[in-house]
């Protein structure tokens, strides 16, 4: 029994030692990046700091414990600023242009309004075959899921802050990060949910 206890203790100590070492590398890597990077254009050094969400996702390898994920998702949900006029649908044609536009937030950008980079990761309209596949296909989005106000609100929220629905989602928080404006997000909602949008044809 004693040996058993000792080995358990030993294993635990070893596990802690490993974890400590892993933490060391992480801390060391972060301070090294802060030393080696410099601000350029709009990309300032504060971009290397993790916010609370990034910290949890980084520390848990994007698989946070369920309880923490739910709490933090709730916090993210609270950041979403819905349109004051209560309308979610903008102009799908403007939305299509935004979806094609991959510009924004890099050190080469600045001044000009950002695009949504949507086609980089999603299939959306039927005419564009050069789409990425990191995200799911959004073709026939409204046709499949319906056009109602709840779906509209969800899509608006998802674009505004994807992390409110899936904490460590790969999708950027386009509203929360100040990348897209309310009007731009509305136009993207229309691209997916206007019955006249080619997405739903």
């Amino acid at each position, binding site marked *: 029994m004693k040996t058993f206890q000792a080995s358990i203790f030993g294993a635990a100590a070893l596990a802690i030692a490993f974890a400590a070492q892993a933490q060391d590398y992480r801390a060391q890597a972060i301070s*090294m990046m802060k030393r080696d990077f410099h601000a350029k254009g709009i990309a300032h050094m504060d971009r290397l700091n993790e916010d609370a969400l990034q910290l949890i996702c980084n520390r848990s390898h994007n698989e946070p414990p369920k309880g923490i994920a739910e709490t933090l998702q709730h916090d993210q949900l609270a950041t979403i600023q819905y349109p004051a006029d209560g309308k979610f649908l903008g102009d799908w044609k403007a939305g299509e242009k935004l979806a094609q536009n991959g510009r924004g937030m890099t050190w080469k950008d600045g001044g000009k309004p950002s695009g949504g980079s949507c086609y980089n990761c999603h299939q959306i309209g039927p005419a564009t075959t050069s789409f990425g*596949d990191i995200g799911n296909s959004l073709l026939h989005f409204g046709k499949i899921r319906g056009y109602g106000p709840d779906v509209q609100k969800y899509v608006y929220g998802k674009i505004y802050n994807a992390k409110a629905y899936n904490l460590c989602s790969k999708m950027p928080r386009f509203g929360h990060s100040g990348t897209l404006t309310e009007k731009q997000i509305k136009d993207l909602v229309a691209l997916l949910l206007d019955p006249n949008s080619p997405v739903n044809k």
Partner: protein
Amino acid sequence: MSSIKLRAVVALSGLALVCAAQAAQKESAPPKKAAVHAKKAAAAKDPVAADFEKFHEIMEEDSPAELFEAKGAEMWKTKRGPKHVSLEKCNLGLGPGVVKGAYVQMPRYFADTGQMMDAERRIVYCMVKLQGFKEADLAKKPFSKGSYLPDPVALVTYVAGQSRNMKIAVPQKLPQERAAYKLGEEIFNYRAGPWDFSCATCHGEDNKRIRTQNLPNLASKVDAVRAFQGWPGYRMTGGLMHTLQWRMNDCFRQQRFPEPGYASETIADLLTYMGVNANGYLYKGPGIKR
């Protein structure tokens, strides 16, 4: 070869590349040689990627990268810099002056600097230490642009060419090298910035693409070689020669991060992580990139 002549040849081959690329895009009129490779290309799932692969195979036999290798080779043995010496005494890890096989064994730990150094970082070090160039000057405009070809780019391309068809064997013998791998892994997975991106966001899963560009999973053994393979690379977009230093810089730009220091430890460690993951594969030498 004089630099003017080289530039003309490069410009011409660049033009040929563009024309060939356009021809390759048009399914109706594929170049004759393409038929030979058509079978293999057809296996790829994406038509644009397949077209490129087809074209890539044709071009590989007569790569424009070799022109840059030639320029780098000449530069290597020429007495240059304030101290007016050549780089022939530069130690790339296998002893002073040994170039053959050095590229596929970097990054590595160098005791003389106490640092992890990838090929470009080491070459910059040699240019500073042996030839008397100023590091700040070399870091000012380190990437190819228009007709401007930075010296380290030509030199890295030459050095890389001297490892053609050799096995990638990035060392992990020393504790510093093993630590660099771990640090590189942390950098690779570090999410931050306005878009919450890490390297792994795009390069951590198999068989993904952005638009039509296939994304190698650089965390996996099978795919990681694609971070090594083809670099330094002659990039058809713009017709420029680029090294891994440029690739890392432009990745961080698109990650929406601030700019990483040129030839910094961060980059050396990141390249160690990816290089070690690619160990065991055959390096085909400087290549062509889309």
